[in-house]
């Protein structure tokens, strides 16, 4: 059942690519003003799930309610309206490589607001400062490290002060220090910008530290949901194997 605290509510979502069923009747609730983390194996449909939430993919069947509105039947124009409430940090940041750092962060502001150049500049400086990248305005994406690119991507995702921010594997491919810095930024995104964070990850240690609630995706379904403490106590052998990172168990390595 949909709860008042849920900002996104998904009911029996099915999606197949050819004969391969990726989402198999998935139900999921994500809470407002919380850090919601979805864990699961690589290639297990986490990215497919997040792409459904933002409407980049349409399900074969099922409902996706964003703040009570089902986005599945919406056309592209209506979807654009819903998307303005979202920000998304892509796995490889997806910065526009023909634009410098400043232009990347300013891009959504130029497109969707009537702010003047100086107002936009103020916002850009504030967002870059928030992710610890003051003075990097003129750098091109190719000149930045992976961690810097992700922080610019986050600054761009936050530019329009979205209500919901999606993070696609935010710490994959980063060194432990940078990963910790990004995890801190995810928590600050919730605290300082008041955004609901939805993170997909397979980084268990970080998930246990920063999540308010965790959902585990396995074989196209959510098989466990709860606080980090509840997930740690979960008795399902699949969950236990995944949390402990063991090669032996019901999850087959292939």
């Amino acid at each position, binding site marked *: 059942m949909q709860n008042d605290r849920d900002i996104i509510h998904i009911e029996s979502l099915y999606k197949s690519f050819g004969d391969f069923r990726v989402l198999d009747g998935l139900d999921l609730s994500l809470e407002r003003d919380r850090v919601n983390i979805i864990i699961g194996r690589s290639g297990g449909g986490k990215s497919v799930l997040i792409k459904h939430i933002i409407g980049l993919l349409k399900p074969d069947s099922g409902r996706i309610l964003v703040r009570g509105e089902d986005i599945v039947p919406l056309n592209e124009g209506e979807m654009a309206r819903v*998307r303005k409430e979202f920000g998304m940090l892509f796995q490889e940041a997806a910065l526009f490589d023909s634009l410098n750092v400043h232009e990347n962060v300013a891009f959504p502001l130029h497109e969707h607001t009537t702010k003047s150049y100086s107002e936009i500049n103020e916002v850009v400086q504030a967002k870059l400062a928030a992710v610890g990248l003051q003075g990097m305005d003129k750098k091109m994406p190719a000149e930045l490290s992976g961690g810097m690119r992700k922080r610019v991507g986050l600054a761009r995702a936050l530019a329009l002060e979205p209500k919901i921010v999606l993070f696609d594997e935010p710490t994959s491919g980063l060194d432990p220090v940078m990963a910790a810095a990004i995890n801190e930024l995810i928590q600050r995104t919730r605290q300082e910008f008041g955004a609901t964070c939805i993170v997909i990850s397979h980084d268990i240690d970080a998930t246990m530290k920063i999540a308010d609630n965790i959902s585990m995706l396995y074989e196209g379904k959510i098989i466990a949901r709860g606080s980090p403490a509840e997930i740690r106590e979960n008795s399902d052998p699949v969950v236990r194997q995944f949390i402990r990172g063991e090669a032996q168990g019901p999850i087959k390595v292939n």
Partner: protein
Amino acid sequence: MRSILGWLGHQFLGLLQELGRIMVLLLQALSWLGRPPFRIRLYFKQMEFIGVNSLFVVALTSLFTGMVLALQTFYAFSMFGAEPLVGATVALSMTRELGPVITGLMVTGRAGSAICAEIGTMRVTEQVDALTVMAINPVQYLVLPRIVAGVIMLPLLTIISDAMGILGGYLVGVQLLDIHGGMFMNKIQEHVTLADVYNGLIKASVFGGILTLVGCYKGFYTRGGAEGVGRSTTQAVVMSSVLILVSDYFLTALMF
């Protein structure tokens, strides 16, 4: 025998399917024509990239095409004393046929490939998805400005190409092979009509639409990382070139 026919049929259906998808992309792009936001700067940027930056290579190849054309026709025409017609032959060939085709093929190689590689890279690095997530329609933002720029700039480049080709013909015919300059120009005026020129320009517009549309299409549906980008870029150049030459035949049959 059956398997060969089956293979041919399969190939043909694949081709039809692809052409259908290209048409769908074209219609999507055209549906954004005249709808805000306009982003005039994107259009000028593409017109500069496709048009202005191709100027040198188009001028150079057209000059030499005119030159070699004069050389070859002079050799043939001198067998029956028709040397003064070399100018008219070069001018007609350039305006009706070679100007638009050479321009189309050169711009395909220079700009069509780059369009495909750029959009393809944006696709595989999720920049196209990033546009969508930022509530910006990627067809409107990436595809339409390029198609419009191609349709506008190719005729302009073709005018330069026609002129350079005739100049090349003049240099070889008059300066090198001693055809009388006045006769050379006179025969051009006598035989080339305005319709020859603007039918050529209409062709060029169509070629501009083809090469930008195919470049965008191949880029837009790129999969599989850097290798995929390379593959689609090659396919874009081959497909554009083939479509330009095939459509050239049908346009010519319709127009002249």
